[in-house]
């Protein structure tokens, strides 16, 4: 590199965040919206209604292969058993999720700054087995829709049942959201229902608009990573 500049990564929703007045910050090499109004207000809106946040920077590692389950077991001590199961594991006080998408495909989700669970870390443990491990962080955009009214938003754009009995926390499914194939993972923030969506990043602005439109009548609000931190507490 001859030119003197620092590469930065941009979520597909960067312009949306800017347009909505999000305060953009650099975190872990990504431009992310820290907050739109203030974290307390945004958190209150999420707790009472529904909010949406961009979680595209989350690390997403895809594993494919018959031996993928064994690799996960070796790495985490266990692996999700059934399709849709989500395993939550703590690594240095940071949560890592492993999702079983189909019989021999898994998705690992970790925070962007997670040091342990990396592409290289998993490849080192591949041990000659035919497992394809890909970092899909770049290709999959991520959104979280959180709040007690989130199921009402999904009613308008997804054919799945989002009722707690049908779709409990730490459960995942693949379905169409606003006609776009999406991995949907329920990962509640305490008592607050929260659904994480992962989909082809090229659709990100379209999906954002579709969710905002569907959530208009429920007062859907965007929230930033600072609010996400608050909601985790």
């Amino acid at each position, binding site marked *: 590199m001859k030119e003197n500049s620092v590469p930065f990564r941009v979520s597909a929703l960067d312009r949306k965040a800017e347009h909505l007045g999000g305060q953009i910050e650099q975190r872990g090499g990504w431009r992310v919206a820290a907050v739109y109004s203030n974290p307390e207000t945004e958190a209150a809106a999420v707790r009472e209604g529904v909010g949406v946040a961009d979680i595209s920077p989350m690390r997403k590692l895809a594993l494919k292969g018959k031996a993928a389950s064994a690799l996960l077991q070796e790495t985490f001590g266990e692996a999700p058993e059934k399709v849709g199961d989500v395993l939550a594991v703590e690594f240095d006080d940071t949560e890592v999720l492993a999702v079983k998408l189909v019989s021999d495909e898994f998705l690992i989700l970790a925070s962007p700054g997670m040091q342990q669970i990396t592409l290289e870390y998993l490849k080192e443990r591949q041990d000659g087995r035919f497992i394809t491990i890909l970092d899909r962080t770049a290709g999959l955009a991520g959104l979280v829709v959180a709040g007690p009214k989130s199921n009402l938003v999904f009613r308008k754009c997804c054919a799945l049942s989002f*009722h707690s009995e049908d779709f409990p926390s730490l459960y995942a499914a693949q379905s169409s959201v606003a006609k776009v194939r999406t991995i949907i993972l329920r990962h509640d923030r305490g008592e607050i229902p929260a659904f994480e969506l992962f989909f082809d990043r090229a659709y990100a602005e379209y999906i954002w608009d579709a969710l905002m439109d569907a959530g208009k009548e429920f007062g859907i609000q965007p929230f930033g990573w600072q609010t996400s931190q608050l909601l985790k507490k």
Partner: protein
Amino acid sequence: MKQLNELTGVVDTTERLTFTFNRKKYSGFKGDTIASALYREGVRVFSRSFKYHRPRGLMCLSGSCPNCMVNVDGTPNLRACVTPLEPGAQVTSQNAWPSPQTDLMGFFDHLGSFLPVGFYYKTFMRPKTMWPVYEMILRNVAGLGKLDPRPEGYQEIEYEKQYRHAEVTVVGGGPAGMSAALAAAGLGARVVLIDENLALGGHLRYHKGDRRPSISPIIPFVNGEASDFTGLARKLSQAVYASENIEVLLGASAFGWYEGNLLGVVQVDRLIKLRTDQLVVATGQMEQPLVFENNDLPGVFLGSGLQRLAHLYGVKPGERAVVVTNNDYGWHVAVDLLAIGVEVSMVAEARRQMPDCPAAAHVRASGVPVLAGYTILKAQGKSSVEAALLIELGEDGAPIPGEDTPTGEDTPGGSEVAVACNLIAVSMGFVPNNALLCQSGAQIAHDPSLDNFRVSSFPPAVLGAGHAVATDGVDSLVLEGRAAGLQAALRLERLDEGIKRQGSSQLIDSQRRLDRARSPKEHQLAFRTLASVPGKSRKKFVCYCEDATEKDLRDAIAEGFDDIETLKRYSTVSMGPCQGKMCSLNTIRVCAHETGRSIAETGRTTSRPPFVPVKLGVLAGRKLEPTRHTPMHHQHLALGAKMMDAGQWKRPEHYGDPHAEVLAVHEKVGVIDVSTLGKIEVFGPDSLPFLERIYTNRFANLKIGRIRYGVMCTEEGVIFDDGVVARLGEGHYYLTTTTSGIGGVYEWLTWWLATWRLQVHVENVTADYAAVNLAGVCARETLAKLTDLDLSSEAFPYLHLRQTDVAGVPTRLMRIGFVGEMGYEMHFPAPYGPYIWQALMQAGAEFGIRPFGVEAQRVLRLEKGHIIVGQDTDALSDPLGAGLDWTVKLDKPDFIGKAMLASRKKRGLREMLIRFEMINPGSVPGEGEQIVENGRFIGRVTSARQSPTLEKSIGMGWIPPEKAAPGTRLQVRVNGRQEDAVVVAAAFYDPDGKRLRA
């Protein structure tokens, strides 16, 4: 008025709403429907009929008949009787000009003899040339309202689609439905309760009954006694709303039951797709009209219609009424009319023996004259009812003619009685509203004791209760609803054993009580079947929607359409907006009578969704058209790009001057966003044999770090897609596809992979990588500012790949040249897209870098003679004819399409893709234009552009091989003219590829 409103509690007389009807100002109250408000204001004629333009007024007040269809704020065919009044609504009548009261097309009513059933199948056929004229006239004369796409004050309707899920869905919010919902919810089931009205209660809201319901003490969810039907409705609905497990959808109509337990529900402008484990149908019943002369005259009401008008909206429907009935319900209607101050001039009871019910006793005690064994022969009046002509019925049900009147004549005679009135209440019995049950596959059989249809068996996951299954009596309705709700909940697998035991015990109790409640019934079932009053008049309407009369049905049957299904299709009866709600039973009865068959033998027509009208906009739902943006999308917009659609993608077509963009690439350096290219990674030890079978090319000799152009064909040898294949490592390849082809190619690869069972993984990484093509004489210098890699042609030659950092970003650099100049296709993680674009623009600034769009790319590749799959090829194009024969390796063991290509090569080509230039350099043929010889079609143009580089008009097209020799003169149609062109041997630009490989 005050007294009437106190009866209802529905209309809020303190809030007055104004609206217009046919541009005239009216007012109503909050809670009114358009019909109730207009009727209160004195409007009696709401529309004109479909065929004869007869005046039509309110009849059912339940949205079942078509008589009050109006246009509201630009939306046609809304039934005024169930459309809530909104302030400022602009309501217009339909199918009438200049007004429904005075419709100039009303003369059609006198042309009945010339418009027999099925006349449209037999007329307007000759001469053929006149059909457009006939069509124009028919469209103006007949119809069901007109759709004005942009009416005055037009506002786009926001349609919506919702998905919902329930364990038990109950359709119908009457006593049976509410009880079912409460019972199921009581066992913990998640219940959705749907009702088409804006309040729960069903018929209890407007039908008062004649005794206190006895049910309340035995229903655990109703506290205390209910003093009357309204009180019971209130208590049940309070319990429903208090239940956390019940979600109530009001103003919602279930219109169809589909595979997979999917219930279609329409709620105003919202479509709800409701998946349910169990369905309980408690949709009630529909009162049926009587077929007699002028039975469509405004002022002729169904008895329940009058009850609704009075009790729900507080409207006094008229001054003097005649009640025509054959069952106890009609006597309740008479009681209600008396209660609101209507003078009941006569009750014509078809039964010869007076019924022994409290309502009848009350009416007689009130001094109302009664004619037993009588019914109505004719409604008299011009545009509204002025009198009812009653006639005595014999033992056989036929009218007894007067001494001076021949049988069947419609003039008063000895047994006829004319009674002056402005209101005729017809109450001749009900038919179960069992359309959903029929659609679900329930077996429906005719019960002669009821002269009605009832369910003989239910399909799995479906139950029925109440009037919908021909049960009567309020106690029975509640108990049967409760039993159905319990049964539905008990079928749920997730209920634990304790709950199931509790539910089973409740179910046994409910059924025991139901058996007791059923006998004696609250209403006597004694009635006198009477669907049609004999007489020769043409104006005895069976189907109000299609203006089909009893005579029409008789004529159709006489013509041979004597099966109920063919009769329906020929006469169109039951095929109008009401979908048989008002005419189905009477049609069956007429058919049975005319054919001498029983009702059971006659059968019924198939019930299909939608049972209620559903707007196409509702079915379409919200506009959800997925759109894809590349990571650099907003930078293109900032540069002034004119965007175009490329499938779901938005791409820059150009940035203002495509020709300048072309020249910039040739003379300086240009950059184009090619992130839309399909990108696939192939992993695994069997990757090579996999690719060898997929592509026509050979890849066995492709070394790591090398790139090769590849073509995929179908089994028929037709070009499927193309792109490059780069070998990244052992058992690891990177493929590109066309923008539009990626979806199909990915499916194709995974499908074949599953067939061949190779150790290969295929990943679609299109969204993971952004891509740009940096091309032009200064491309190398530009890129050199951003990478330490040796970019010299020797170190990094054409058709090679390097994985390196560009501006600090890990990048796959490919030396390929679709646009015909030396260049680099750079693929890098998508989130760096804006950063890399910015870095390239900055690095290239000193060389005059210019972004170029799809239009410039198309010109550049055409100059170079590169094809675009899908543009220059079609469903018959093979690589041999497309000039890609060098990619077809028939000596490979096998690949998809090999057999067909080998055969085609042996047989010879049918056509070839050639490059041509126009003799007139300013003449550019359109894509798809014909290539002709002596005026005859011999081929077609696939691409053509004006080349600013060559200052020529150039193109490609398919022609027969014998015409494809270089230098051959062709004629191409350009804007209707034939212009000369000449076949060109090779690429128009840089034919030997020196610039590309530089």
